[in-house]
């Protein structure tokens, strides 16, 4: 067991290193001058350009750059931003991370409540009209562009009905307000972007939950529980749902990329001051060290999420250890 855990952690580390390598070479070997944005609107002397190239380290051969970059990543140094006047990328990320975690966490919670609820409901009445309608609804969730839904929801609930704020995380005049008032204000700002993100991602959860639950409901253990005369909700949630948990964990690897990709668009629409906006701004400014930094952070999160899911799955279902 411990040998397996050690091997699995090592494997995650290797995956992360390969992903980082891949990201570096994809960015640097494709055409396009990383400093184009800095030099396009002002004619610079060759000497000035050379000093800029030296400052960002791209005057070195690509292999030297790569070694520098990789050792930087391992020490937690992601280089300097071009658009933010050379501020460290890690500092930019640290500023934006809490907002993204708040938004992503809330969206994940809503996603889970909706997805699990709908999936379980469908699994208990397969083939019914409600099941078929909810299948289409789940697939429609998956098919909706997040940026479009964000614009529509913002227009309806903020611009037209004035129920919720259109953008940002806090009203500027509340800077000195008591904590509770500010928290309430943040919550009001959080609602629309979190809902948008949850609505475009819950479909995947619901589809997986329906399949996992349908399998669990067919288990002999569930039939036994029913035969013992246990109440329906006990059979459903204590016996069947717990057995459907394992396959759901595999979704970890799916949720994170979905949420991160969605938050690039949703944060940009609602001007939510998180990593997504940072990435969107970096795309607009062709700020490659920031794009790279965010990508590496995201891939680390995905690798870590998969690792945790595997470890948790193993812990929940010790039989897996006997097979592997």
């Amino acid at each position, binding site marked *: 067991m411990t040998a397996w855990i050690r091997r699995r952690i090592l494997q995650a580390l290797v995956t992360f290193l390969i992903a980082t390598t891949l990201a570096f070479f994809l960015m640097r070997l494709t055409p396009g001058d990383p400093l184009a944005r800095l030099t396009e609107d002002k004619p610079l002397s060759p000497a000035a350009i050379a000093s800029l190239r030296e400052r960002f380290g791209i005057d070195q051969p690509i292999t030297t750059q790569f070694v520098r970059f990789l050792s930087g990543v391992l020490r937690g140094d992601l280089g300097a931003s071009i658009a933010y006047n050379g501020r460290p990328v890690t500092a930019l990320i640290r500023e934006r991370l809490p907002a993204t975690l708040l938004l992503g966490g809330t969206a994940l919670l809503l996603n889970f409540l909706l997805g699990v609820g709908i999936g379980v409901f469908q699994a208990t009445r397969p083939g019914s009209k409600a099941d078929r309608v909810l299948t289409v609804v789940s*697939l429609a969730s*998956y*098919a909706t*562009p997040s*940026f479009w839904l964000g*614009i529509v929801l913002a227009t309806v609930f903020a611009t037209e009905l004035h129920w919720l704020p259109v953008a940002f995380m806090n009203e500027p005049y509340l800077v000195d307000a008591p904590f509770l008032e500010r928290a309430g204000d943040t919550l009001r700002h959080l609602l629309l972007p979190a809902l948008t993100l949850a609505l475009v991602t819950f479909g995947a959860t619901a589809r997986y939950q329906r399949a996992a639950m349908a399998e669990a409901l067919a288990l002999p253990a569930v039939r036994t529980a029913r035969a013992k005369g246990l109440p329906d909700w006990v059979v459903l949630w204590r016996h069947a749902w717990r057995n459907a948990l394992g396959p759901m964990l595999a979704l970890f690897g799916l949720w994170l990329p979905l949420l991160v990709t969605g938050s690039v668009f949703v944060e940009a629409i609602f001007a939510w001051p998180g990593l997504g906006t940072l990435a969107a701004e970096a795309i607009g400014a062709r700020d490659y060290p920031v794009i790279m930094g965010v990508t590496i952070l995201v891939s680390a999160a995905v690798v870590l999420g998969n690792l945790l899911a595997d470890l948790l799955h193993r812990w929940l279902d010790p039989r897996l250890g006997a097979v592997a």
Partner: protein
Amino acid sequence: MSALWRDPAGRLGVILFGVLLALAALAPLVLPDPRAQPDITHGTLLAPSLAHLLGTDHDSRDVLSRLASGGRVSLSIATGAVALSITLGALVGLVAGYAGGRTDAILMRLVDAALAIPRLFLLLLIVGVMQRVPLGVLIVTIGATGWFGTSRLVRAEVLRLCTMDFVRGAEALGAPRRRIVFRHLLPNVAGPLAAATTLAVGDVVLLEAGLSFLGLGVQPPTPSWGGMIFDAKPYIVTAPWISIAPGVAILLTVLSVNLIGEALERIAGREGLVA
């Protein structure tokens, strides 16, 4: 195909997709030129009417024409990109699954790593520094970043098939490896591969819309659904139809191919059990 028609969800998807395809294909015959700007002073942001079924945009262009023309662009990109990604995915999966050993281990580690980077970010790394993205480059990059999941799926199928008697029999008879891979393995992964292909079309349509919304996809004046949503943003209150139309178009297209894809998955699953 008849199995697809018997599946209620699959049939809904086929009908929906057929209607969308017909609209995109027939549009140029009946609708005005999507590039025409007939009346830039009085004809902008007109509400839907008989002359313009979905109204006009801020440049007085017919929204329905642009929608149909954007749909042709979207579906062409999706077709090209998916053809590339499925071919790559099938090849890598077949090789990894059948060769096994070190080849398999190396290929699958690479695929694991590539899957750790969300596809949008992979694309940003490639096209993010470019000033303009030509259509061909867009198709190739979207295709080249989409095969990782497919290769895993094909590999898993190949591993399952390799334990079966007909493959082992062919091996025992001394069939060359190429013959086993292309005559025995490939046809038997066709079912799951068809499902993956259909689902991939939906992913690409969404991805391309997102990239175009960010200004990195299809370049104006070529119409694209993502670009239309971006252009319509300032007018969402005064002229909501120009925003709503392309969003609904994306939703219906992706929904229809996903309905078909899931139905194909169910069919492949049933056939897999029989084989």
